[in-house]
Each structure stands twice: as C-alpha cells, then as structure tokens.
C-alpha cells in the first residue's frame, strides 16, 4: 500500500501502526535502486514529499533548522561551506533534486557525503514519533554499519546546523562526477576555535576523529601541529579494502586530505 500523508502527525501515526512493515519514502534514491535490482520490495510506503512542514528551512541566530525533506540541491545553496560542498558532490543534478540530507543520514552509508559535513559542524538531529521528539548530536546517531538510533516508529524531522563555524570539505574518488568517495573529509573550527575533523568511507559509519581533535585542542592549530594531527587521523581510522581502493591507500589519502584541509583552514 502507498500512503501520501499531508502532515507529520499522519505520517507518524501510520509508521507507529505499521512499524517495520512500512518504509518512509523521501527522495527514493536508495530504496528504489534496491527495488530495481530486486533486492527490496517494501510492503508499504509512506511518501513524505507532500508534507509542507518537512520542506522548511528556519533561520535562527547561529543555527539553521533543516526539515527532513530538504534536498541536496537546497543544501547546496546554503551559506555553510562544507555542507554546501558536500551536498553538491552527491550524484548529479537529478539525484540532488530528489535525495534528501535526512535520507542520507537515515541510510547511514559509511560513504555519506552529507554526514561528514554535518558531523564536523556538530549538527544535531531531531527524531520524532507519536511518543514525542528527541534530539541528539549526530555522532550519537550512527551506531554501526547502516545502523542508527532511529526506532521503528521514528523519522528524522529536523537537522540543526550551526552557521558560525568556519569549514572546508573535500572528497576523492575515481572520477570527478557521480562519485562515491574513496575518502571524504570535512574540517571545521568552532567559534571557540576548537577544531572538528570528520571522515567518511574509512570506518563502518562516518566518524569524528576525536584523538586528533584533542591533540589540536591541547597543542593549537598551526603549521607545526597539522602534520602530527594528520598522522593521528591515520591511526584513528579503520578503513577496509574494497573495490574502490585498498585500506592502505585510504589511510594514506586520509592523512593527505586532512593535512591539506587544515592548512587551508589556517590560511583562510
């Protein structure tokens, strides 16, 4: 059965009723691929595209609240550097018009482009069900390979992103376009001058590199500490060898990318 609720309450009511038997449909860019390849055949869909509340972007003093259906195309126009860059690197124009940031998080791909940017920005997610809403930092949301904190009756209603961080982002893959990353990385500096480092495709989930961040908090971010921080990142990640690249290469690449991004951030 296909449902097209007109507001969040209706959608949550349906999900609470059907639980695992229903799949939320945001952009569809992951689930329909699985269906096309005969790897999924959901019994029920709850289409979120016709819920106006889920399209909104609200501006506050130093944060943006992005509702669950904000697309990569929309996020690509936001004045948040690393998030805009990450969003514009997802797929091609057609995928970016369909796919949503929240969907990117819910899919919890280890290679999630948006996830790295949002992790480095200390973004929070709001998960809502008929039982109520709860908020958590994004790094508490990812549990394991394609596993998240989302319960069977919950949806991501909002992503809350600070606008006062300085940030940068980079991704390396086999081609310039339509790329799934070999490594993607985001770095950011908070208003209190703390450094954030996040990477994708180097562990079971997109991750923050806390050891390298702590090292920089203690020793400061400058030309002398950047290489050491990059070396700590190399030790902190646990990539696997796959069809995109070997684990060794991903470790090497991560060190280089983090070093370059931090150098740019110091110069900027």
């Amino acid at each position, binding site marked *: *059965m296909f449902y097209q609720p007109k507001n969040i309450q209706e959608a949550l009511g349906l999900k609470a*009723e059907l639980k695992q038997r229903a799949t939320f449909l945001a952009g569809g860019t992951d689930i*329909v*691929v699985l269906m096309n390849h005969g790897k999924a055949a959901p019994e029920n869909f709850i289409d979120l595209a016709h819920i106006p509340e889920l399209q909104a972007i609200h501006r506050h003093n130093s944060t943006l609240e992005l509702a669950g259906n904000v697309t990569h195309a929309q996020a690509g126009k936001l004045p948040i550097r690393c998030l805009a860059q990450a969003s514009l690197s997802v797929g*091609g124009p057609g995928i970016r018009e369909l796919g949503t940031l929240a969907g990117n998080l819910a899919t919890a791909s280890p290679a999630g482009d948006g996830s790295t940017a949002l992790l480095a920005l200390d973004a929070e997610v709001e998960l809502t069900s008929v039982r109520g809403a709860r908020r958590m930092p994004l790094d508490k949301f990812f549990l394991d390979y394609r596993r998240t904190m989302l319960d069977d009756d919950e949806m991501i209603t909002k992503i809350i992103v600070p606008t006062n961080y300085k940030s940068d982002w980079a991704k390396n893959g086999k081609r310039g376009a*339509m790329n799934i990353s070999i490594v993607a990385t985001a770095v950011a500096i908070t208003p209190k001058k703390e450094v954030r480092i996040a990477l994708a495709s180097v562990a079971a989930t997109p991750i923050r590199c806390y050891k390298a961040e702590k090292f920089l908090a203690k020793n400061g971010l400058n030309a002398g500490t950047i290489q050491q921080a990059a070396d700590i990142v190399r030790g902190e990640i646990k990539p696997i060898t796959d069809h995109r690249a070997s684990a060794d290469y991903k470790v090497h690449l991560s060190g280089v990318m983090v070093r370059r991004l931090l150098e740019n951030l110091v110069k900027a």
Partner: protein
Amino acid sequence: MKKAAKKTLPANDGGLWPLRFTLNGKKVSVKVQPTQTLLDFLRIEMGLTGTKGACLEGECGSCYVLVDGKPMNSCLMLVPQVQDRNVTTIEGFAHNKKLDVIQQKFVECGAVQCGYCTPGLIVAAKALLAENPHPTREEFLVGMEGNICRCTGYNKILRACELAADEMGLQKK
C-alpha cells in the same frame, strides 16, 4: 488501522493509486500501480518511449524528466511521487512541430550518435539553462554531470548546449 491511517488512505482500487498530474502540458488522471517507477509508467502505460532506462540506479541520466522544471531521474521515482506535479518528458519539448532550441542545436552540431543518452542530456540542459541562462563551460559540466554518453566524446554535446544558450539569449532580446 488507526484513525490517522484511514484518513490518509486514497480511494482503494485493488491497490491502485489514483494519480492526477500534468504531463507535457495536459492534465492526466489515471489509476496506477504505486510501486511502478515513473520511468516504466511513462514508457509502458503512457507510451512515451523517448525517456530511456539504462542503469536504473541514477548513474547515467538517460531517464531524466523535468518535474516542476527540475531534472529528476525517473527510474528512481515511484509514480505517486508526481501527484499534483508538472512532468515534462522529451516528447513535450517540441511545439507545433517546431523543435526546442536545444533539440535543434543537437541536430545542427551532430551531437547525437546512437541517441540513447540524448533525451536525458536535452532535459538536463533545459533545466540548467532555465536556472542559469549563461553558464560558463565549468557550469555546463556540473549541470550535465549526471548524464553519461558512451558513444563518443562530449565536445559536440557541449557545443550544442552553448549554441542553444546563445540563441536563447538572442531570442529574449
């Protein structure tokens, strides 16, 4: 079922979905299989075979259509997602037997070899030029990055798009 569920249920017709949308300028009202992709629906049910399917995973762009003016991969959409929306396929580009400027420039430049990618490319170019009438070469590359041509290079395709942009600029003046 709970109350909320009942309210949301469309008129149930053997699991079929009552779809209303605009297709190439005409209002369409039809019962559809809701798990059918928009691509299959357009080709099989509507007989509009200009839109192609190839990779079925969003990599190649041969299935692009315009939905409310935005390019979208019809192979990744389920039909009910276009409820109340405005869909334009390549068949909706020519008016009164006159080709769209982009189509005309593809012909003039010989930007077509086997032709399989062409409808998707023209749809992508249309969307790009609507948003940005004077793209730089770099902006063209980004706007067309979701489309793959496997016959040959992209030079003639880009040339056709650039000439179309020039001509559309002239027409406006």
